[in-house]
């Protein structure tokens, strides 16, 4: 994918090596995402003007994404929704990463701890992910809080699995045995020897968790859980748009969904390029 993009921008990137290109892609996409968040934060303060004279307008120069049945500009609504999605995604990834870190280090302490962590991972993966989020969000009393907690508490298992496998492999290393024989405590080994090895994995895992969290948040919101109808979330915009499909207002669903797709793709691209930068084997491809 990134190669396809690099190809399209050949003239722009000529004369740069792969590392520079990768860094450029990462910075471009990051700036785009940051811009969305900052703009949405500025927009969040003022309520969107409803203007019934300009309702259900098809996309034009004035309203690039069209307007809805209350005459609200869809472009602004979409931006706000995306900002909200990114913030929720960031929060959820952060919590999940912290959980991964704790459980990963805990699993390094001994055999019983390790089987407990692996059992917990299996347990969380045994129920379909979407259903688990719904269940937790109901348990938390629903609402915005319920969805955020539901998304945050369910994205750690796959990364934990990776981290656990990595730890298992690290534990066969000789310097860990030596460290142990020198009388270092398990906790000391976990934080001083194992953790530094894990940090790139965890950083990459966190970035790649983002798109999942965002898509899940949008899905659950679309289904009607959590965020209240006044909140400009993408899921809510799209579920509202569903009622206007047969009327032919295609822009209500098309542009917000497409923007969400682009945001998710941007995160994927950052993750992938980041992985390339960190993988020494691929550095000179």
């Amino acid at each position: 994918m990134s190669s396809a993009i690099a190809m399209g921008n050949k003239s722009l990137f000529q004369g740069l090596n792969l590392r520079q290109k990768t860094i450029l892609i990462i910075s471009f996409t990051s700036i785009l995402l940051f811009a969305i968040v900052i703009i949405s934060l500025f927009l969040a303060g003022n309520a969107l003007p409803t203007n019934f004279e300009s309702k259900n307008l098809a996309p034009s120069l004035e309203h690039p994404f069209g307007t809805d049945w209350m005459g609200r500009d869809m472009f602004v609504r979409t931006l706000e929704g995306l900002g909200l999605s990114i913030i929720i995604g960031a929060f959820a990834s952060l919590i999940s990463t912290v959980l991964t870190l704790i459980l990963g280090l805990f699993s390094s302490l001994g055999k019983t701890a390790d089987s407990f962590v692996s059992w917990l991972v299996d347990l969380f993966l045994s129920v379909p992910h979407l259903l688990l989020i719904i269940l937790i969000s109901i348990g938390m009393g629903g609402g915005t809080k319920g969805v955020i907690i539901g998304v945050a508490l369910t994205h750690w298992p796959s990364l934990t699995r990776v981290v656990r496998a990595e730890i298992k492999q690290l534990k066969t290393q000789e310097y860990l045995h030596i460290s142990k024989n020198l009388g270092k405590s398990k906790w000391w080994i976990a934080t001083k020897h194992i953790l530094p090895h894990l940090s790139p994995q965890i950083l990459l895992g966190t970035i790649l968790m983002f798109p999942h969290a965002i898509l899940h948040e949008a899905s659950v919101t679309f289904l009607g859980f959590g965020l209240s109808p006044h909140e400009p979330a993408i899921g809510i915009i799209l579920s509202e748009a569903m009622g206007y499909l047969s009327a032919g207002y295609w822009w209500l669903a098309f542009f917000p969904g497409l923007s969400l797709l682009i945001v998710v793709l941007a995160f994927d691209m950052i993750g992938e390029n980041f992985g390339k930068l960190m993988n020494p084997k691929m550095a000179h491809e």
Partner: protein
Amino acid sequence: MKHAKLGFFLGKKTIKLISLLVVVCFASFWIVEQSPIDPVRAYIGEMSIQSEQKAKLDEYWGVNTPAQEKFFNWAGKLLKGDFGVSLIYRVPVIDVIKEKFTASLILMACSWLISGVIGFVLGIIAGMKNGTWIDKAIKTYCYILTATPTFWLALLLLMVFSVYLGLFPLGFSVPIGVAAANVTLFDKFQHLILPALTLSLLGVAQIAMFTREKLIEVLLSDYVLFAKARGEKGLDLILRHGVRNVALPAITLQFLGFSELFGGAALVEQVFSYPGIGQATVAAGLRSDVPLLLGIVIFSAIFVFFGNLIADLIYEFIDPRLKQKEAML
């Protein structure tokens, strides 16, 4: 020898399933118990009632019984196969699940098969033509698909095929206003196409990328180099050495995807108003139908478990490479 091993394997898995279900029951009950949901409100809806009646209903639904007692009541009935009565459908939970799961199984099975076959073929093509424009096109397609929100794609397809082209009905698994007995197989089929298409399109990505990577790995192996040295080439080489080695891991992966399939089905069913288990889940969640929700959690856990079990079985008993390893020991 082999039967003994299989027996041992299945015995172990049965114990695992039982212990898993016990924990899932306990955990999901505990989570729902945390919720401030009032089951009486969920049952009567927005109706206003007198406080005496409310007290009676409270007693009937056990609002004031302690959580442990409630759990043991529920779990005790569960052991006898009684899942309770659904609050929104007003019929036993087990009947609701039976009906909705069957409808969903057809949908999921269709898209599972289609996405598996197409994904595998695309993966083989991409791996074979590694680095060419075909490979890049397939990779880009898969990459975009993984970032696509399921419900958005469903909305787009609904818009294009049902609203603009008018080829398919706007929703529901049977035509509106037609008695159940008069619904033809064709009607059912027609209402199945778009949801199945959506799920298939999205399911392709993962399996295609996996197959592609595996095939490239196989093509770099020594035995393929040797086969090339013997003069084998082209499609023949791929079919003889590539596909045979890639097929099993790909099928295994497809079986491991049951969990995501369920989530995808829930979203798609919502958009197309397809009355399956996904829609029932959403309804149960939104309207606080706790018995139904817990029933669905249990059955979906069994569903996912069987997917994993089949994947394990393939890995342990069918993969010829492992057989060889055993013979060597």
